[in-house]
């Protein structure tokens, strides 16, 4: 099986789907001729034609609206918003239009659009190239929200997202495009040799709504998504505590069964995300977990998140949840 980084695996998913389904079109800023500023659509225009993979004007609202129109008229657009921070001019089209058209039209129209967008920090991008705005979409009924973390799951999840008949916001952790990120900016490995970088060239799917058990243990359940999956892995190793690490993969709908099952086993839980804490998706999970697992919990659920502040530029390592912060939270769950 070829070794792919996450740029190549996303590219491979798009390529497979363009081959399989003539109704798929791909567009966005710089995605056509240039192949995307992160190179995720490199070579696809040349292979599949300019009418299927093309540049759009620099207009996120226009991209989302056009995708909406194509989607309700039988196409299956896969569009890119160059940075998740730039998705907000499209927010009205996504939240009020895409998310609600099936419902508002009594099921006569639906919108099978996938919006891919690089998200998250760790690239010295300051507050406009680092945000992780998943909670702004999980709070919108009608949208599905996916956050991949590895080359293998990015491809399988993206194919499922594209085939899904509902609109899907698909977050790609840009910090992990070329390698997993373990929280140490001075030691950045590539995907080479990583088991999750073995990616089939052919079509395969990972169902939406299923978490991935990335590590298995007995004493604590650590839940993370995106780049934080790898940081949490490092933290668990550093802590020496036996943990389940659940890579949530899909945030809406999230895998409640896997989470409940794990917490029933461990009785303790830490949730990690790099987005701010207040109204972050971790808050939703904490609330649901106490509803389902209250009598299994041995200690309060811990959250390790970005601060409730804009994402900084020079001092981003004091913002991003670090392995030590996560390890301390894991430790804390053991003390009660």
């Amino acid at each position, binding site marked *: 099986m070829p070794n792919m980084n996450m740029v190549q695996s996303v590219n491979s998913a798009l390529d497979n789907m363009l081959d399989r389904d003539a109704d798929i079109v791909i567009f966005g800023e710089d995605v056509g001729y240039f192949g995307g500023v992160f190179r995720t659509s490199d070579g696809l225009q040349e292979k599949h034609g300019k009418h299927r993979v093309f540049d759009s004007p*620099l207009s996120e609202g226009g991209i989302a609206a056009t995708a909406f129109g194509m989607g309700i008229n039988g196409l299956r657009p896969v569009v890119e918003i160059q940075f998740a921070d730039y998705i907000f001019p499209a927010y009205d089209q996504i939240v009020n239009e895409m998310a609600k058209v099936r419902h508002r039209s009594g099921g006569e129209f639906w919108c099978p659009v996938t919006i891919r967008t690089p998200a998250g920090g760790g690239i010295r991008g300051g507050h406009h190239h680092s945000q992780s705005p998943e909670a702004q979409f999980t709070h919108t009924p009608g949208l599905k929200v996916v956050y991949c973390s590895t080359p293998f799951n990015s491809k399988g999840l993206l194919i499922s997202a594209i085939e899904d008949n509902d609109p899907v916001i698909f977050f790609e952790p840009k910090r992990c495009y070329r390698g997993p990120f373990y929280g140490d900016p001075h030691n950045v490995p590539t995907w080479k040799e990583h088991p999750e970088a073995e990616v089939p060239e052919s079509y395969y799917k990972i169902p939406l709504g299923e978490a991935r058990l990335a590590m298995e243990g007995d004493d604590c359940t650590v839940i993370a998504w995106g780049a934080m999956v790898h940081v949490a892995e490092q933290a668990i190793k550093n802590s020496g505590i036996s943990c389940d690490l659940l890579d949530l993969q899909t945030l809406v709908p999230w895998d409640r069964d896997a989470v409940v099952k794990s917490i029933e086993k461990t009785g303790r839980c830490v949730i990690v995300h790099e987005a701010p804490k207040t109204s972050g998706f971790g808050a939703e999970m904490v609330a649901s977990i106490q509803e389902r697992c209250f009598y299994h919990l041995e200690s309060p659920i811990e959250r390790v998140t970005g601060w409730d502040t804009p994402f900084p530029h020079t001092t981003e390592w004091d913002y991003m949840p670090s392995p030590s912060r996560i390890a301390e939270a894991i430790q804390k769950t053991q003390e009660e």
Partner: protein
Amino acid sequence: MVKKETKSIHVPDAPHRPGDEPKFEQWSWKPEDLNLLKIDCSVEDAENHATGLVRVLDDNHEAKGEWNPDLTSDELILGLEHMLRMRIFDERMMKMQRTGKLSFYMRSFGEEAIAIAQTMALKSQDWLFPTYRQPGAQFVRGRDMVSMICHCIGNEEDNVKGRQMPVHYTYREGRYISVSSPVGTQFSQAVGVALASKYKQLDEVTITWIGDGASAEGDYHYALNFASIFKAPVILNVVNNQWAISTHSNFASNNQNFAIRGIPYGIPSIRVDGNDFLALYSVTKWARERAAKDLGPTHIEVLTYRAGAHSSSDDPSRYRPKDSNNHWPGGDPIERLKLHLIQKKDWSEKKHQELEKRIDAEVMDAYKEAVKFGDLANGPYPSSDAIFTEVYENPPWHLLEQWDEMKRWRDE
């Protein structure tokens, strides 16, 4: 479903891609081609100017035509000096980026005349609402170069405290409003800035810029509509440098020019040679006078060429002819003003070299001074307390709590 024999979606082509001979045909206008517009001209009067190109410097570097602003030699030399300063400063910053002393950089290469000539044509009380491609305005407004470098590094002396990416300057003292990464947002905001000045009945005009690419954002259209309706004292510039990263301006305009778009909004609109210092100065001064006389907004297309990469993260040889900037469509703005001054016998190659040397030393000194406060590769960095300050006017309890937690980790 009724099928018909037709082609699929039309997707425009860029006029040239790697391997092609670059084609530039838009600079054929002569200074004499367009008359000076009356200050209270109608929208219809400006139609020729919206489709033509206002130029002052001709091919022999002489200042010609009715738009000649008749600047003194001292004023012209000051403009030349600022443009050179911008270019040499950019070169130094790129070197710093390449050696890891700052994280990212964006040059104004080939577009130096725009911010500098236009800001010089304004009054010091006028508001500037720039993109990342108009830092040169700060030189005109007297900003200390050390402070600019400290911002780009994001070190202890960065006035925005390590929060923004490089080139996202804020300089309130010079009425240079904070640059934001999401493109286009400033364009419609500038109308509000202008209306606030008007509400307060102050003699202030606001100037703003947007790229050709970003003119596809809604903000561009909001700005034209609001400015027109409320007669805002605002100068709305579309800087058509022809490339939005890899996307050619024809994806924003379908090969139409940009200036003409102001006409149906009822805004007198002019296209100007963005590499001609004198033409830029003149058109901007005219627009300022209109605004100051309560005649409302002016919409300007500044035709230029992004001679360099979009940013330090970009490699334009992948999407446009490698040597396209060597063709200097419109000519190097610095060279053109230099040759004009030489031709007027106000300047010489020798003086020019001396000036270059002086600015080189000035930039080098500023660089050495700035890195004393830290660089990205080696620190020291600004205090991460700045993550928590100025999120709100006063931090609420949850931020204070998190701030304490951050300090515990940081200071451990």
